[in-house]
């Protein structure tokens, strides 16, 4: 067995367990096998996949031991102890579909928690339904998943990209001031395209005179933005919107900062919170950051949050960022739904019972309350927050200041309305505090 890596061992253990359970015939189930999928290799691993995997490890151990603070202080999920199978999300959509089939049909996963890329989510959702495996999408953001399809076994515990971009546009409209021209750089796939469409739709409502100067869609994982930065630097924009994430975001920030782009136009980074501990003072002051919900430096001060930050920081040496929060949120959602179903069933619940309990569930997550209130109870909404970055040279620590919070009903569409239609209609029914 190579080195001390846990993945081969886990697989070995699972193969052994599968062999034993086959040999023993129909035994009572005592563990819940959960496939945990995220980028473990490639440029998205460091800022997204690894924090998510770390959070999964921490949460699963705590859940199995029953040491998560209330209301999650009962051991296990639906009475079963969790046995995770970690899978790499690298390789593209078709690979992920193949891996999901293997996970369920070959390794016998009972549930799947995963997927960072919107491309993966769009590809696996129909297959998850076909395989009838409860699948909790923990991080991917495109609204298309439930707006263009409907699934019985698929849930998403993170709010979708519309929330991030509505809040970003509202924040920019008040904090940047008068915007005459603005530009965007977003990756050429569902997440990037949807983020940009939502942002421009809301900014058109907030500041009708603002005009789009440059809209750039480089390839996902391209990593080199020399020409794009040239195009932006001569675009005379007042603000730059970007939903780049992972290694792409980090590369873009380095290249843009070295050429002084942020001095000319402040950047709004909808996933910017992921890089603050990794880049420190290389991230320019004044950059507007989101965390796709009240996560990390933008989290509310709750018991669960204090516990999570302390445990995570002690164990991994760096504070958790939003992918870690999203993962914890997904596992807590799964636990809340399973525990509810178990109580109703008076024993280990079936997948269908858990799915029924998950629909429309409202549960306490790390940073805030989450309601599964869109897409017939399959899609979460939550409150969110935006702030402005500042590197504190005295403490040597990154800070987010000037934080503005948005309640869930203010920045999410009502149930049954497609995001882009809601935005184009002027966001009817939005209730802001």
């Amino acid at each position, binding site marked *: 067995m190579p080195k001390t890596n846990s993945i081969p061992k886990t697989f070995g253990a699972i193969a052994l367990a599968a062999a034993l359970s086959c040999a023993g015939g129909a035994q009572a189930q005592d563990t819940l096998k959960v496939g945990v999928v995220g980028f*473990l*290799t*490639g*440029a998205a*691993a*460091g*800022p997204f996949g*690894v924090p998510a995997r770390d959070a999964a490890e921490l949460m699963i151990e705590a859940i199995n031991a029953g040491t998560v603070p209330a209301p999650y202080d009962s051991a296990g999920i639906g009475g079963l102890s969790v046995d995770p199978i970690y899978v790499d999300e690298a390789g593209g959509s078709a690979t992920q579909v193949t891996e999901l089939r293997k996970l369920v049909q070959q390794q016998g996963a009972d549930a799947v928690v995963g997927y960072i890329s919107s491309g993966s989510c769009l590809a696996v959702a129909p297959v998850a339904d076909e395989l009838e495996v409860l699948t909790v999408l923990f991080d991917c953001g495109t609204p298309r998943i439930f707006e263009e399809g409907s699934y019985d076994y698929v849930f998403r515990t993170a709010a979708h990209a519309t929330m991030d971009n509505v809040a970003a546009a509202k924040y920019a409209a008040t904090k940047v001031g008068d915007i005459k021209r603005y530009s965007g750089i977003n990756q050429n796939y569902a997440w990037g395209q949807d983020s940009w469409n939502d942002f421009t739709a809301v900014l058109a409502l907030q500041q009708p005179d603002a005009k789009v100067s440059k809209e*750039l*869609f*480089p*390839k996902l994982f391209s*990593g*080199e933005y*020399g*020409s*794009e930065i*040239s*195009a932006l*630097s*001569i675009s005379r924009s007042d603000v730059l919107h970007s939903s780049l994430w992972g*290694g792409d975001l*980090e*590369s873009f920030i*380095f*290249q843009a*900062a*070295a*050429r*002084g*782009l942020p001095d*000319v136009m402040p950047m709004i980074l909808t996933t910017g919170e992921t890089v603050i501990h990794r880049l420190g003072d*290389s991230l320019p002051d004044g950059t507007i950051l989101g965390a796709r919900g009240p996560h990390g430096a933008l989290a509310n001060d709750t018991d669960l949050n204090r516990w999570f930050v302390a445990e995570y920081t002690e164990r991994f040496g760096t504070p958790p960022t939003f992918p870690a929060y999203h993962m914890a949120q997904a596992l807590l959602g799964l636990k809340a739904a399973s525990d509810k179903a178990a109580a109703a069933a008076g024993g280990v619940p079936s997948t269908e019972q858990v799915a029924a309990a998950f629909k429309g569930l409202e549960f306490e997550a790390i940073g805030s309350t989450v309601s599964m209130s869109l897409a017939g109870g399959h899609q979460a909404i939550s409150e969110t927050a935006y702030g402005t970055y500042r590197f504190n040279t005295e403490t040597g620590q990154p800070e987010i200041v000037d934080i503005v919070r948005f309640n869930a009903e203010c920045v999410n569409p009502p149930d049954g309305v497609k995001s882009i239609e809601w935005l184009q209609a002027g966001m009817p029914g939005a209730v802001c505090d």
Partner: protein
Amino acid sequence: MTAIAIFIDGAVYASWVFIVALGLTLIYGVMKILNVSHGAFYAFGAYGTATLVGLWFEADLPVIGGFAMMIGASVIVGLVLGFVLERVLLRPLYDQDEVVLVLVTYAAFLIMEDLLRLIWGSDAYFAYQPFVAVGRTVVGGMIVSNYDIMLIVFASALGAIGIWMLNHSRFGHILTAVIHDREMAASFGVNVAKVFAVTFVIGAILGALGGAVTAPKVSVTPSMGVEVIVLAFAVVAIGGMGSVTGAIVGALMVGFARAAAVHLLPEIELFVIYAVMAIVLVLRPEGLFVRAKARKI
């Protein structure tokens, strides 16, 4: 304004892709091996640079040394990988078909990608200090990084040295002889095996150098060699495989085509390079700078 941007971006991109393609075309010209593992040299060069530059700046040493570290990393990577690969893998297989040799280097590429991951892990590395340290200049109203200007100067110098060496140095004459006719050169007493080994190592160093100059600009990640290798293929195929002048022209065509696409017609950005490659190959099947060969009967 846009014209200036296209010119500068095109020149920067051309310089970068030329540095990568130079080693590839040299190896092909002399050895007739289309070396897929060049992409791995590139990635190792980037990682070596990220490591050495990281150590250098952690120790708070002067900036200029950071550039020395980049060259040092390339030389080490090229010497070690180039030597091992040539001696262990290629030398016993030289008499194989050209296409089989491509596959041998493809296998080597796969293996080296995993080795890279075993050595450095899968998290991203940064070596941005040299990029940030040199500052920036305003050219025609556009802010340009001085690092990119240095890249253009460096690539031009490399091209000039390459051509001068081939035409005027002793080793260059030997190389020209081997490129022209391997058997003839051998019969005149040229030690072809030694020429092959030296060429391969030089090519490997150049490939690593391509990665080294890229490392400060990007987050260095394991799969960075996959994309670069086809790009370098395109440059080499356009210019004519084995021609240094061809690599210069190919790099300029690729660089300006891409820059123009990004600024004027972003929809075609991703395939404009390969469209140029296809058009050139259709008009001149062996590239722009290669003499036509007689058909064998």
